[in-house]
């Protein structure tokens, strides 16, 4: 009882301080809005404005280099519905962003668990293994371009010298080979991102809990499922959604490796829009790029739920 009275007694004082604060914070508001102005100006001018301009362009038949154009309604989108290349583009993008995820996730989790042990030069090793993710993708993709070259590929050379294959593999010769090659390069680039994100989450796993579980006779797998996984669950989900979003909207890796070929069979949204813009059909290209938006909005909405859940 006495505890309750003490708390009640303290309350008026706390409220008074809070009221004093409220007055105080009110003066922060004008300054806060002022601070947002320079950044928001840039974001409005070069993000919000082009976004709406893009929607408008996608409803016109604007061509590069021609001043005249007219409003065509949803014609550009209607054209896409009957465009076999666009169908392949949608399929490729979904394959590219979802098939690679389990590989990046599991291999990244494995690497994080390995790196979470204490050993000499661990900082150095960590930085080294992060390289695929930090060097410019356009540049590392050039290395993959050569690794998958139809004549000079060292992969073909090794397989030939082991007698596994007789002639060089034509990695970019047909659609599925090319998509496979692209996915391998993407897994290579994205794996370290999962690894370091999960590694950061692993630091929060309590050692005592882990040891207690070990004493209770839980084996390594049970310990992972009951102690480690609940702690890193949200970080894994957030990293996965980040990865899906950035893979879905990728451009450079595919641009360097196949440019959408052979025969426009490996395009993703970004490369197909770029190619269409190259043919000067700006309205059509804008419609292709904007087709990404519903997907991205969905992924972002899911991501936002998990990030808010963290609060």
């Amino acid at each position, binding site marked *: 009882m006495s505890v309750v009275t003490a708390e009640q007694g303290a309350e008026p004082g706390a409220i008074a301080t809070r009221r004093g604060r409220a007055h105080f914070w009110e003066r922060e508001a004008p300054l806060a809005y002022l601070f947002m102005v*320079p*950044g928001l100006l840039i974001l409005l001018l070069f993000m919000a404005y082009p976004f709406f301009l893009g929607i408008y*362009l996608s409803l016109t038949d604007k061509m590069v280099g021609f001043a005249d154009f007219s409003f065509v309604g949803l014609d550009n989108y209607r054209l896409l519905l009957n465009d076999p290349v666009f169908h392949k583009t949608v399929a490729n993008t979904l394959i590219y962003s979802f098939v690679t995820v389990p590989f990046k996730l599991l291999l990244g989790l494995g690497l994080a668990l390995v790196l979470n042990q204490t050993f000499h030069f661990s900082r150095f090793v960590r930085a080294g293994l992060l390289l*695929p993710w930090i060097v410019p993708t356009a*540049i590392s993709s050039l290395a993959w371009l050569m*690794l998958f070259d139809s004549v000079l590929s060292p992969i073909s050379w090794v397989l030939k010298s082991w007698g596994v294959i007789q002639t060089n593999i034509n990695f970019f010769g047909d659609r599925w080979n090319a998509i496979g090659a692209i996915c391998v390069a993407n897994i290579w680039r994205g794996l370290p991102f999962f690894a370091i994100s999960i590694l950061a989450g692993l630091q929060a796993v309590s050692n005592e809990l882990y040891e207690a579980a070990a004493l209770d006779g839980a084996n390594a797998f049970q310990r992972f499922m009951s102690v480690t996984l609940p702690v890193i669950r949200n970080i894994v989900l957030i990293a996965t959604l980040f990865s899906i979003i950035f893979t879905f909207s990728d451009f450079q890796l595919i641009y360097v490796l196949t440019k959408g070929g052979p025969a426009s069979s490996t395009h993703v949204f970004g490369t197909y829009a770029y190619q269409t813009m190259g043919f000067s059909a700006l309205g059509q290209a804008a419609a292709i790029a904007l087709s990404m938006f519903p997907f991205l909005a969905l992924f972002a909405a899911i991501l936002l739920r998990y990030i808010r859940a963290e609060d």
Partner: protein
Amino acid sequence: MVGSNRFTQRLLKLWLPLLLYAIFLLFPFAWMLIVSIRPDQILLDTRINPFAIVNPTLENYRYLLQETQFPRWIWNTLVVTVGSTALSLACSILIGYALGRFRFRGGNSLGIAIFLLYLVPPTLLFIPLSQIVSRFGLYNSYWALILIYPTFLIPFASWLLMGYFRTISRELEDAALVDGATRLQAMTRIVLPLAIPGVLSAGIFCFTLGWNEFLYALVFMGSGDMKTVPVGVVSDLIRADVYFWGSLMAAGILGSVPVAIAYAFLVDSYVSGLTAGATKG
């Protein structure tokens, strides 16, 4: 007996998997290095073991630095990256400070909005942006990228700095205010100096993101001698199906060095920045 058992366990749980990961993750870099020091006639001779280092030469590097525009691309990339990083940092410090330390109506929603902008990819905006860039007469001008790169740098850096500003104790600032300092004085003399590590890492991340950007650079500065490193390497060293593999790989090595060095110092703070910023929003 016990010792060798521990050694075997360590080998199986640490060194062996580490070796396999290292082979997969570092192989393309080793390959770049091997090719970059190979003379052409050996490179193109498919009978020779592609991994053997035969008659190593620096000719590819000399060709790259003297007979291509590579040094110019490095300069362009530096100008664009430093310019956009400075602009983004200035804007992001203000936004991060406002979102991290001020309570005001709409503050939370603005924070969420900034986070969502981070998810907007260049592929979504490059087509209408090309119209805006040409209307402002910014094609092939440094200003195009210096003004446009902040669209992905500001959301990222503001998010990171917002998280950082929140970790700085309020009491210090309140004490200064009680002592009669104005809010701006408290900010510039008390909080900002404490936030220097955060500002520094935000700056380095901006630098590397700018250095690596490809699509905007390709579309807005992709012709003439205004190319950035990634664009120049991809579009000038490959001409109509003729691949200058040796100098391509040399360019790959040299073009990766700046970001590799920058990140080597920052691996740990990157992770905490991204995830802490992301989870504490």
